[in-house]
């Protein structure tokens, strides 16, 4: 396939090397002379000097026959314009834009870009995978007695599901005060009551008890990638 990449920074450079190794035909268009020279030294005519948003530069790069166009500069607006010129002027079948601001993802889609890649979004997703989901929300702080009123959400994979209230190792200074279950009246959780997925428990807790409660109710999320089970 013929792949045209705009932006010869780190992303464009490593992307071009990987695509070349896979046997694709690649050209990298870089505006900055120093970055261009660095790339040209190693990859020769794969690197071209010019503004990848300019139609004349893209025409010279043979965009008419490009299968994929990738805008990989570090500026969202430059990536948007490069992709749009590729699409409107040269009818490239697939345009991919790198984006910094994750909020630009739906906007770019709306403006005709086929695909966006957001490093920030990927990192956020990865981080969220590693940490427990937020099951505990602080509703109110009773500053004078040093207690918080918190809400605990029971997820389907929580270790407390199916266990009775009396079995739970509730930290000292914490009280499970109210149980809210879909379609039922709020009630005080009785010791023999079994916890169900989707339950919400309102608890009174000290600051020290809060992380213990959070730990008790949460599981490490895993998407089956084999990391941390």
């Amino acid at each position: 396939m013929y792949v045209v990449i705009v932006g010869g920074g780190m992303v464009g450079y490593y992307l071009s090397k990987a695509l070349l190794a896979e046997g694709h035909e690649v050209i990298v268009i870089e505006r900055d002379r120093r970055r261009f020279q660095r790339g040209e030294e190693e990859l020769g005519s794969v690197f071209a000097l010019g503004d990848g948003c300019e139609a004349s530069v893209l025409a010279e790069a043979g965009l008419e026959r490009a299968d994929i166009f990738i805008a990989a500069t570090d500026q969202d607006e430059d990536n948007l314009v490069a992709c749009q010129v590729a699409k409107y002027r040269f009818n490239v079948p697939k345009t991919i834009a790198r984006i910094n601001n994750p909020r630009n993802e739906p906007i770019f889609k709306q403006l005709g870009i086929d695909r966006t890649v957001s490093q920030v979004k990927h990192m956020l997703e990865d981080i969220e995978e590693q940490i427990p989901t937020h099951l505990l929300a602080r509703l109110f702080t009773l500053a004078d007695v040093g207690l918080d009123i918190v809400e605990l959400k029971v997820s389907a994979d929580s270790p407390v599901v199916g266990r009775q209230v009396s079995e739970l190792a509730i930290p000292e200074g914490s009280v499970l005060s109210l149980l809210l279950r879909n379609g039922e009246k709020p009630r005080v959780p009785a010791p023999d009551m079994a916890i169900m997925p989707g339950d919400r428990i309102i608890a009174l807790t000290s600051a020290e008890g809060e992380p213990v409660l959070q730990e008790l109710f949460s599981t490490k999320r895993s998407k089956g990638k084999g990391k941390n089970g």
Partner: protein
Amino acid sequence: MNIVIMGCGRTGAQLAVSMDAAKHKVTVIDISTSSFARLPASFNGTALFGDGTDEEVLRKAGIDQADAFVAVTQSDNRNIMGAQIAKYVFHVPRVVCRIYDPLRKDVYEAVGLEAISPTTVFADLIKSQLEARPQE
């Protein structure tokens, strides 16, 4: 008219001041606070620090209620992006965008953006002035 101007350079500031003087509601956005020094003390509009290509900043600028959006930053691509967000995401009734590069202007005019190229306008103006009073 309720107008949001992206870019408080010479053009943006002058437009902001004249629209404000004509009793329009003006909000001018710039990514550099020092640009706001171009606005006189008598300016009644709002100067908002932020990135005009950021949806969140545009919301803060009140783009939901804007009748017009003008993109006049130093960068063609920023103007193009801001203008398209205003037009296609927020559906601002009137959107005007400055694009220095005449070729890029043609591309975006073809897809429905109202664009002005100062390069072309100024070159034409000089040409017609020269021709109106040729050297003897």
